[in-house]
């Protein structure tokens, strides 16, 4: 794909790695906020190729991982109701709620469907006027414009059998919350490039100033990530703390004004409890009051949810970068991608799943991988 494949060039990657290697004279801990960046780092083996001095801490930028448990349970409740077609991005289907997940709801007869875009859910609503179509609107600022437009269209076209279950989360408050933590080890951030392509970069200089940390807006392909790391290391070595944009090809400083206008119309800021982290004030978006009619939480009156997390799951500490996944006692034993205890083991860019899939060789749990049963099918 043009303007994508070139940014995986291994020779150029080697240049960048050499630069990082010669620049880093002391240990540094850098957090990449975005789950997509975590995925790319692990998938390409970048964390392996970086010099020991540079440690990547995987941040809470995985919307699957941080969607509050209560919202997951509400989603499961709504999805199980007869007459409902519950639509979701694929990422959410295996996320464990207190006692179930969307896949089990589907097995039990719920009409749960994976869609690529929220517009597909809206089309389903148009095609099935006698059913209630609910879309699970999760994600960061990157995904919010799509969800916003969909609700806006629903209202404009009068598609009244459509509603949105919203759980958006915002990056800048998360960075602040991480830096406020007394056990924080993060010294620099790779900001999420696609979030910034929508929102612009204006929210980050105040964070740079308040916490004295370099923040580098970074993309997702290997060269982009290495460049983001390179610039962060240089700043740290030189004692600078600035906002830099290492992803200018899709991040203009003011982002996308049309998208921001829609976001301001459709969403209102709210406090949000991040799964595994806790309440972060003003860190989420809910539907604005004028779109109340399209809010699934209102339409379905889902109350009285009692949430219950696994008592041994430490995904919160993983999300904050306080421990690495293999430092959790349940990693690879009670908790595997097949039997996830927490959301960080479900999504492929949840740090635990990424570690499990890609790092089992180096961080093998004490029990040896059990032999697979002799193949009994295709």
């Amino acid at each position, binding site marked *: *794909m*043009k*303007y*994508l494949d*070139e*940014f995986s*060039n291994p*020779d*150029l990657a080697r*240049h*960048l790695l*050499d*630069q990082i290697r*010669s*620049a880093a004279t002391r240990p540094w801990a850098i957090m990449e906020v*975005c789950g*997509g960046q975590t995925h790319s780092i692990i998938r390409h083996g970048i964390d392996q190729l970086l010099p020991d001095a540079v440690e990547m801490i995987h941040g809470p*930028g995985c919307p699957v991982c941080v969607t509050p448990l209560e919202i997951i349970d509400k989603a499961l409740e709504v999805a199980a109701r007869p007459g409902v077609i519950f639509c979701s*991005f694929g990422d959410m289907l295996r996320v464990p709620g207190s006692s179930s997940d969307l896949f089990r709801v589907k097995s039990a007869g719920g009409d749960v469907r994976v869609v*690529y*875009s*929220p*517009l*597909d859910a809206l089309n389903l609503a148009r095609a099935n006027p006698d059913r209630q179509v609910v879309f699970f609107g999760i*994600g*960061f600022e*990157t*995904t919010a*414009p*799509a969800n916003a*437009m969909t609700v806006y*269209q629903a209202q404009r076209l009068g598609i009244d059998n459509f509603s949105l279950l919203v759980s958006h989360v915002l990056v800048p408050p998360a960075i602040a919350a991480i830096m406020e933590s007394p056990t924080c080890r993060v010294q620099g951030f790779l900001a*999420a*490039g*696609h*979030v910034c*392509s*929508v929102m612009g*970069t204006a929210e980050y*200089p105040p964070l*740079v100033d308040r916490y004295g940390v370099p923040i580098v807006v970074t993309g*997702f392909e290997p060269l982009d990530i290495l*460049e983001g790391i390179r*610039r962060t290391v*240089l700043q740290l*070595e*030189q004692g600078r703390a*600035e*906002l*830099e*944009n290492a992803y*200018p*090809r*899709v*991040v*203009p400083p003011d*982002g*996308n004004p*049309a*998208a921001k206008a829609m976001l301001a119309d459709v969403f209102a800021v709210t406090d949000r409890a991040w799964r595994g982290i806790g309440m972060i004030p003003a860190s989420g978006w809910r539907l604005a009051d004028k779109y109340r009619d399209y809010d699934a939480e209102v339409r379905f009156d889902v109350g009285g949810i009692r949430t219950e997390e696994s008592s041994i799951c430490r995904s919160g500490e993983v999300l904050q970068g306080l421990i690495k996944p293999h430092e959790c006692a349940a990693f690879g034993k009670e908790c595997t991608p097949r039997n996830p205890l927490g959301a960080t083991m479900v999504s492929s860019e949840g740090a635990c799943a990424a570690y499990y899939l890609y790092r089992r060789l180096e961080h093998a749990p004490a029990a040896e991988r059990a032999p697979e049963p002799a193949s009994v099918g295709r």
Partner: protein
Amino acid sequence: MCLAVPGQVVSVEDRDHTRMAEVDFGGVRKDVCCEYIPDVASGDYVIVHVGFAIQRLDEESALNTLAEFEQMGILEEEFGDQFALAARQAGLDDPENGRTAR
């Protein structure tokens, strides 16, 4: 978050008063909502996330970035020294591609 992929706009049309485009991703084609790129035109590159174009891709900027990476390899051979390299790069950077201090 944020699997957003670059593609080239092939054609634009209004559907239900919504700006839609057929976008080509190197052979794979998908219908994409372009309401957020109001003046989108055929031939433009956009990045697409869950069926929406969320930003333009600046081709010149992309090529400049790649050129910078190529340059880095050459400069590394010449200079080797990271600080000299950074200084030289400060001279090379233009305001658009370079750092935004504050």
